[in-house]
């Protein structure tokens, strides 16, 4: 528990160990709600909030919890955080909540969250733990939004449609129709489009990574975390 580099936390969370594109955790919501950018942002923000607060709570309790009850305690913490967020969304972002539906409560089952609790928050002080939650959430958001944008542009020819669900009436000015009179591209909207799109994004990330000639000392941690979560 030596000094932590916030730079490294962000680089890992957003790029090197991106939850959606490298570690490949939380794929169910990632694939299911990315029909539009607005849905993607909604789920991304809810997941990020969950990560920040669950990491914080786990970090605060790290001296108290014995190993044998660690996992059930984390599940309780995460479930409470998610339910609080669900209630707040129902009260203040009701229409968006109705669109995202079951995927908000299902954030509990996103293994990325318990993964971060176990791998990082349980071994670090509250501040770095919260920052790690933020970075991981940001990385997940980026994956969600990239996939959402890809599918919405290809599938509907629009961007930010239904933005009023999140930003109120102001959001209506955000809605862009990129291709007027677009007939739609069904494959992009349907589940296969989500899988194909995710594959393309993973490949694109790998390609960008491989172009950077900087020698990296083995990308083993990502593998290890995947193994641990499997």
């Amino acid at each position, binding site marked *: 528990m030596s000094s932590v580099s916030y730079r490294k936390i962000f680089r890992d969370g957003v790029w090197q160990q991106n939850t959606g594109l490298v570690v490949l955790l939380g794929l169910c919501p990632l694939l299911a709600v990315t*029909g539009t950018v607005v849905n993607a942002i909604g789920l991304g923000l809810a997941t990020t909030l969950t990560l920040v607060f669950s990491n914080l709570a786990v970090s605060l*309790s790290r001296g*108290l*919890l*014995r190993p*044998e*009850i660690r996992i*059930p*305690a984390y599940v*309780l*913490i995460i*479930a*409470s955080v998610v*339910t*609080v967020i669900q*209630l*707040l969304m*129902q*009260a*203040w972002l*009701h*229409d968006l909540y*109705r669109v995202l539906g079951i995927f908000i409560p299902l954030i509990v089952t996103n293994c990325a969250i318990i993964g971060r609790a176990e791998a990082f928050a349980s071994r670090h002080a509250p501040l770095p733990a919260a920052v790690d939650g933020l970075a991981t959430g940001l990385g997940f958001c980026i994956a969600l939004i990239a996939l959402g944008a890809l599918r919405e542009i290809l599938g509907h020819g629009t961007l930010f449609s239904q933005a009023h669900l999140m930003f109120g009436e102001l959001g209506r000015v955000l809605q862009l129709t990129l291709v007027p009179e677009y007939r*739609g591209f*069904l494959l992009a*909207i*349907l589940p296969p489009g989500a899988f194909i799109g995710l594959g393309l994004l993973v490949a694109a990330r790998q390609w960008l990574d491989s172009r950077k000639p900087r020698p990296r000392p083995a990308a083993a941690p990502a593998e290890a975390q995947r193994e641990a979560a499997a």
Partner: protein
Amino acid sequence: MTERPDRIWRSALLLAVVAVIGTATLSGVHELTAERIAEQERRVVLEQLEQVLPAARYDNALLTDRITVTDTAYFPGGQTVTVYRARRAGEPVALILRHRAVNGYNGDIRLLTGVDVDGRITGVRVTGHGETPGLGDGIEVGKSDWILGFTGRALGDPPEDRWAVRRDGGAFDQLTGATITPRAVVGAVHAALRYVERNRARLFTRPAETGAESSTR
């Protein structure tokens, strides 16, 4: 096996403390949000109802003047239908049924159908469905105008044997690339009309039911 009992008890206690803290937080947040959530849900229902029957046409509290009915001959699939009763100065104006079409392409299609006292449809809207995006989802009002074709229709308009989609020799268009979805909706709306025709007087006079609404979807 070598674990000492007091150690197990302490672990259990710790876990219980975590659970109590979680529960306390949740009940706190629930207290803070319950009223607002209930209000939001009422708003959603009113917005839905407004689409099939403009609020200007009635003056009673539609959300509380409602009953539930079941009739497997008209509403198959074991559904419980909520009926809202619109009145003006105490006189019946219209009924709004929250029912489902059970023979869609993928799961139930949830419908809201408004019928005025003369038996004419004041509007039909889909409030939830799992039909194919880009094909069957043309029944949504945001995707196409198809569902608006019901407004003003009644039993006998079109004639009884033409209450079907065009492919089945009826008067209603199908959607491009989708016949099953519109067929299901036409069938369900027709059944709702026939049910209202047979039961109208009874539906208006039955005392209103209280309690929370089962579903707004």
